[in-house]
Protein backbone atom coordinates (compact mmCIF):
# COMPACT_ATOMS: atom_id res chain seq x y z
CA UNK A 1 0.00 0.00 0.00
CA UNK A 2 1.29 3.40 -0.84
CA UNK A 3 -0.95 5.26 1.56
CA UNK A 4 0.63 5.65 4.96
CA UNK A 5 -1.77 4.37 7.62
CA UNK A 6 -2.89 7.19 9.89
CA UNK A 7 -1.67 7.27 13.44
CA UNK A 8 -3.89 4.96 15.50
CA UNK A 9 -6.19 7.11 17.61
CA UNK A 10 -6.36 6.18 21.28
CA UNK A 11 -8.48 7.54 24.09
CA UNK A 12 -9.39 6.70 27.66
CA UNK A 13 -11.75 7.89 30.34
CA UNK A 14 -13.96 6.80 33.18
CA UNK A 15 -17.04 7.53 35.26
CA UNK A 16 -18.63 6.41 38.52
CA UNK A 17 -21.62 4.01 38.51
CA UNK A 18 -24.57 5.78 40.15
CA UNK A 19 -27.26 3.08 39.97
CA UNK A 20 -27.76 1.63 43.48
CA UNK A 21 -27.79 -1.93 42.08
CA UNK A 22 -24.67 -1.37 40.00
CA UNK A 23 -24.17 -2.16 36.33
CA UNK A 24 -27.00 -4.66 35.79
CA UNK A 25 -28.54 -6.16 32.64
CA UNK A 26 -30.34 -3.15 31.17
CA UNK A 27 -27.50 -0.65 31.57
CA UNK A 28 -25.08 -3.30 30.26
CA UNK A 29 -27.11 -3.53 27.04
CA UNK A 30 -27.17 0.24 26.67
CA UNK A 31 -23.41 0.36 27.14
CA UNK A 32 -22.65 -2.35 24.59
CA UNK A 33 -25.13 -0.98 22.05
CA UNK A 34 -23.49 2.41 22.26
CA UNK A 35 -19.97 0.92 22.05
CA UNK A 36 -20.97 -1.02 18.92
CA UNK A 37 -21.84 2.21 17.11
CA UNK A 38 -18.14 3.04 16.96
CA UNK A 39 -15.52 1.50 14.76
CA UNK A 40 -12.87 1.68 17.47
CA UNK A 41 -12.09 -1.35 19.61
CA UNK A 42 -13.29 -0.44 23.10
CA UNK A 43 -12.44 -2.16 26.35
CA UNK A 44 -13.86 -1.54 29.77
CA UNK A 45 -13.05 -2.52 33.33
CA UNK A 46 -14.55 -2.01 36.77
CA UNK A 47 -12.45 -0.55 39.54
CA UNK A 48 -8.75 0.19 39.42
CA UNK A 49 -7.47 -3.37 39.03
CA UNK A 50 -10.28 -5.27 37.29
CA UNK A 51 -9.84 -7.27 34.10
CA UNK A 52 -10.26 -5.37 30.83
CA UNK A 53 -13.07 -6.81 28.72
CA UNK A 54 -14.60 -6.12 25.32
CA UNK A 55 -17.11 -3.27 25.79
CA UNK A 56 -19.12 -4.58 22.82
CA UNK A 57 -19.94 -7.90 24.53
CA UNK A 58 -23.10 -7.77 26.72
CA UNK A 59 -22.10 -11.03 28.39
CA UNK A 60 -18.65 -9.73 29.34
CA UNK A 61 -19.93 -6.34 30.48
CA UNK A 62 -22.57 -8.01 32.71
CA UNK A 63 -19.86 -10.16 34.25
CA UNK A 64 -17.90 -7.07 35.31
CA UNK A 65 -20.37 -6.80 38.21
CA UNK A 66 -19.50 -3.10 38.51
CA UNK A 67 -20.96 -1.91 41.80
CA UNK A 68 -22.56 1.33 42.89
CA UNK A 69 -19.86 3.92 43.50
CA UNK A 70 -17.26 2.03 41.50
CA UNK A 71 -15.46 3.66 38.57
CA UNK A 72 -15.75 2.04 35.17
CA UNK A 73 -12.87 2.89 32.88
CA UNK A 74 -12.80 2.83 29.10
CA UNK A 75 -9.95 2.54 26.63
CA UNK A 76 -10.51 2.82 22.90
CA UNK A 77 -8.30 2.36 19.88
CA UNK A 78 -9.32 3.24 16.33
CA UNK A 79 -10.48 6.02 14.06
CA UNK A 80 -13.26 7.28 16.35
CA UNK A 81 -11.69 6.35 19.70
CA UNK A 82 -12.11 9.77 21.34
CA UNK A 83 -15.78 10.02 20.35
CA UNK A 84 -16.42 6.49 21.60
CA UNK A 85 -14.91 7.14 25.03
CA UNK A 86 -16.64 10.48 25.53
CA UNK A 87 -20.03 9.00 24.52
CA UNK A 88 -19.59 6.05 26.90
CA UNK A 89 -18.43 8.23 29.78
CA UNK A 90 -21.45 10.49 29.25
CA UNK A 91 -23.79 7.47 29.27
CA UNK A 92 -22.44 6.32 32.67
CA UNK A 93 -22.59 9.91 33.99
CA UNK A 94 -26.25 10.15 32.90
CA UNK A 95 -26.86 6.94 34.92
CA UNK A 96 -27.72 5.14 31.66
CA UNK A 97 -30.86 7.29 31.28
CA UNK A 98 -32.51 5.06 33.89
Amino acid sequence: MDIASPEMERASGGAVVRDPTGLHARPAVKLTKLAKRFEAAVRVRAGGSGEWVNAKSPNRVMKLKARHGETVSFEAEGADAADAVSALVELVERNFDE
Partner: protein
Amino acid sequence: MSEGSPIVLEGVAASGGLAVGRLALCHGRRALRRVAGTPAEERAALVAAMARAAAQLEALAAGAELLAAEILEFQIALLDDDELTEPILARIAAGTGRALHVLVDLGVGRQRTGCASTAGALAVARRIAGANSLAFGGVQAYAGHLQHVPEMAERARQGAPEDAKIEDVLEASQQMHKKR
Protein backbone atom coordinates in the same frame (compact mmCIF):
# COMPACT_ATOMS: atom_id res chain seq x y z
CA MET B 1 -24.49 -34.93 39.27
CA SER B 2 -23.45 -37.46 41.92
CA GLU B 3 -25.03 -37.24 45.35
CA GLY B 4 -23.08 -35.42 48.02
CA SER B 5 -20.61 -33.71 45.74
CA PRO B 6 -21.55 -30.06 45.53
CA ILE B 7 -20.57 -28.29 42.34
CA VAL B 8 -20.06 -24.55 42.45
CA LEU B 9 -21.20 -22.76 39.33
CA GLU B 10 -20.38 -19.11 38.98
CA GLY B 11 -22.97 -16.88 37.35
CA VAL B 12 -24.42 -13.44 37.24
CA ALA B 13 -27.96 -12.75 38.41
CA ALA B 14 -29.89 -10.53 36.04
CA SER B 15 -31.25 -8.56 38.97
CA GLY B 16 -30.15 -7.89 42.51
CA GLY B 17 -31.04 -10.37 45.24
CA LEU B 18 -30.33 -13.87 46.35
CA ALA B 19 -31.19 -16.78 44.09
CA VAL B 20 -31.99 -20.03 45.86
CA GLY B 21 -33.39 -23.04 44.08
CA ARG B 22 -32.72 -26.13 42.09
CA LEU B 23 -30.15 -26.11 39.35
CA ALA B 24 -30.98 -28.90 36.95
CA LEU B 25 -27.92 -29.95 35.00
CA CYS B 26 -28.04 -32.65 32.39
CA HIS B 27 -24.77 -34.35 31.61
CA GLY B 28 -24.02 -37.55 29.73
CA ARG B 29 -24.08 -36.35 26.16
CA ARG B 30 -24.65 -39.07 23.62
CA ALA B 31 -21.95 -39.89 21.14
CA LEU B 32 -22.02 -37.65 18.11
CA ARG B 33 -23.69 -39.36 15.22
CA ARG B 34 -23.03 -37.14 12.26
CA VAL B 35 -22.65 -33.60 11.09
CA ALA B 36 -25.94 -32.56 9.51
CA GLY B 37 -24.52 -30.49 6.68
CA THR B 38 -21.26 -28.98 5.55
CA PRO B 39 -19.75 -26.54 8.03
CA ALA B 40 -20.74 -23.70 5.70
CA GLU B 41 -24.37 -24.89 5.60
CA GLU B 42 -24.45 -25.37 9.37
CA ARG B 43 -23.01 -21.92 9.92
CA ALA B 44 -25.58 -20.34 7.60
CA ALA B 45 -28.37 -22.26 9.35
CA LEU B 46 -27.28 -21.05 12.79
CA VAL B 47 -26.86 -17.43 11.68
CA ALA B 48 -30.33 -17.53 10.08
CA ALA B 49 -31.84 -19.12 13.20
CA MET B 50 -30.33 -16.43 15.42
CA ALA B 51 -31.68 -13.74 13.11
CA ARG B 52 -35.15 -15.33 13.28
CA ALA B 53 -34.95 -15.54 17.08
CA ALA B 54 -33.89 -11.88 17.27
CA ALA B 55 -36.80 -10.88 15.00
CA GLN B 56 -39.25 -12.82 17.21
CA LEU B 57 -37.86 -11.17 20.33
CA GLU B 58 -38.07 -7.75 18.66
CA ALA B 59 -41.72 -8.40 17.82
CA LEU B 60 -42.36 -9.40 21.44
CA ALA B 61 -40.51 -6.34 22.72
CA ALA B 62 -42.57 -4.06 20.47
CA GLY B 63 -45.73 -5.12 22.27
CA ALA B 64 -44.30 -5.22 25.79
CA GLU B 65 -44.21 -2.59 28.48
CA LEU B 66 -40.92 -0.74 28.96
CA LEU B 67 -39.27 -2.91 31.63
CA ALA B 68 -40.22 -6.15 29.90
CA ALA B 69 -39.06 -4.76 26.56
CA GLU B 70 -35.67 -3.90 28.03
CA ILE B 71 -35.21 -7.44 29.35
CA LEU B 72 -36.08 -8.77 25.88
CA GLU B 73 -33.54 -6.35 24.45
CA PHE B 74 -30.92 -7.93 26.69
CA GLN B 75 -31.77 -11.31 25.19
CA ILE B 76 -31.49 -9.85 21.68
CA ALA B 77 -28.12 -8.35 22.62
CA LEU B 78 -26.86 -11.77 23.75
CA LEU B 79 -27.73 -13.19 20.31
CA ASP B 80 -25.53 -10.47 18.85
CA ASP B 81 -22.57 -11.00 21.20
CA ASP B 82 -19.54 -12.05 19.15
CA GLU B 83 -17.78 -13.28 22.29
CA LEU B 84 -20.55 -15.85 22.70
CA THR B 85 -21.19 -16.76 19.07
CA GLU B 86 -17.61 -16.94 17.81
CA PRO B 87 -16.61 -20.04 19.84
CA ILE B 88 -19.76 -21.79 18.54
CA LEU B 89 -19.07 -20.79 14.95
CA ALA B 90 -15.46 -21.96 15.40
CA ARG B 91 -16.69 -25.39 16.55
CA ILE B 92 -19.00 -25.58 13.53
CA ALA B 93 -16.14 -24.59 11.21
CA ALA B 94 -14.08 -27.40 12.77
CA GLY B 95 -16.85 -29.84 11.84
CA THR B 96 -17.98 -30.56 15.39
CA GLY B 97 -21.44 -32.11 15.53
CA ARG B 98 -24.02 -30.79 17.98
CA ALA B 99 -22.02 -27.63 18.48
CA LEU B 100 -24.78 -25.90 20.37
CA HIS B 101 -26.03 -26.96 23.80
CA VAL B 102 -29.47 -25.59 24.48
CA LEU B 103 -31.24 -25.11 27.79
CA VAL B 104 -34.99 -25.33 28.04
CA ASP B 105 -36.20 -22.20 29.83
CA LEU B 106 -39.28 -22.91 31.94
CA GLY B 107 -41.28 -19.84 32.94
CA VAL B 108 -41.99 -19.93 36.65
CA GLY B 109 -42.70 -16.89 38.73
CA ARG B 110 -43.60 -13.72 36.91
CA GLN B 111 -43.28 -15.11 33.37
CA ARG B 112 -40.46 -12.75 32.58
CA THR B 113 -38.54 -15.50 30.87
CA GLY B 114 -39.18 -18.99 29.58
CA CYS B 115 -42.12 -21.03 28.35
CA ALA B 116 -45.34 -20.18 30.16
CA SER B 117 -46.47 -23.81 30.38
CA THR B 118 -44.89 -27.20 30.98
CA ALA B 119 -46.34 -28.30 27.62
CA GLY B 120 -44.60 -25.38 25.90
CA ALA B 121 -41.27 -26.27 27.54
CA LEU B 122 -41.64 -29.87 26.42
CA ALA B 123 -42.35 -28.70 22.86
CA VAL B 124 -38.99 -26.89 22.95
CA ALA B 125 -37.30 -30.03 24.32
CA ARG B 126 -38.87 -32.02 21.46
CA ARG B 127 -37.49 -29.54 18.92
CA ILE B 128 -34.01 -29.90 20.48
CA ALA B 129 -34.24 -33.69 20.40
CA GLY B 130 -35.25 -33.52 16.73
CA ALA B 131 -32.49 -31.18 15.63
CA ASN B 132 -29.23 -32.74 14.51
CA SER B 133 -27.16 -29.74 15.42
CA LEU B 134 -28.47 -29.29 18.98
CA ALA B 135 -27.76 -31.04 22.27
CA PHE B 136 -30.04 -30.81 25.29
CA GLY B 137 -28.13 -28.97 28.02
CA GLY B 138 -30.63 -28.91 30.89
CA VAL B 139 -33.50 -26.87 32.26
CA GLN B 140 -33.35 -23.38 33.66
CA ALA B 141 -36.09 -21.51 35.46
CA TYR B 142 -36.03 -18.06 37.01
CA ALA B 143 -38.36 -17.72 39.99
CA GLY B 144 -38.38 -13.93 40.06
CA HIS B 145 -41.35 -13.82 42.40
CA LEU B 146 -39.24 -15.50 45.12
CA GLN B 147 -36.28 -13.17 44.76
CA HIS B 148 -37.37 -10.99 47.62
CA VAL B 149 -38.48 -13.63 50.10
CA PRO B 150 -35.67 -13.20 52.63
CA GLU B 151 -36.21 -16.30 54.73
CA MET B 152 -34.69 -19.47 53.24
CA ALA B 153 -37.21 -22.00 54.59
CA GLU B 154 -40.13 -19.85 53.43
CA ARG B 155 -38.52 -19.42 50.05
CA ALA B 156 -38.05 -23.18 49.72
CA ARG B 157 -41.68 -23.74 50.76
CA GLN B 158 -43.01 -21.28 48.20
CA GLY B 159 -40.70 -22.64 45.54
CA ALA B 160 -41.72 -26.30 45.99
CA PRO B 161 -44.41 -26.31 43.27
CA GLU B 162 -41.91 -24.80 40.81
CA ASP B 163 -39.35 -27.45 41.81
CA ALA B 164 -41.81 -30.16 40.90
CA LYS B 165 -42.48 -28.58 37.50
CA ILE B 166 -38.76 -28.26 36.77
CA GLU B 167 -38.23 -31.88 37.78
CA ASP B 168 -41.02 -33.02 35.41
CA VAL B 169 -39.66 -31.05 32.47
CA LEU B 170 -36.10 -32.25 33.13
CA GLU B 171 -37.10 -35.89 33.32
CA ALA B 172 -39.28 -35.81 30.22
CA SER B 173 -36.61 -33.91 28.26
CA GLN B 174 -33.94 -36.42 29.25
CA GLN B 175 -36.19 -39.26 28.09
CA MET B 176 -36.69 -37.58 24.70
CA HIS B 177 -32.96 -37.08 24.40
CA LYS B 178 -32.23 -40.76 25.17
CA LYS B 179 -34.74 -42.00 22.63
CA ARG B 180 -33.53 -40.09 19.65
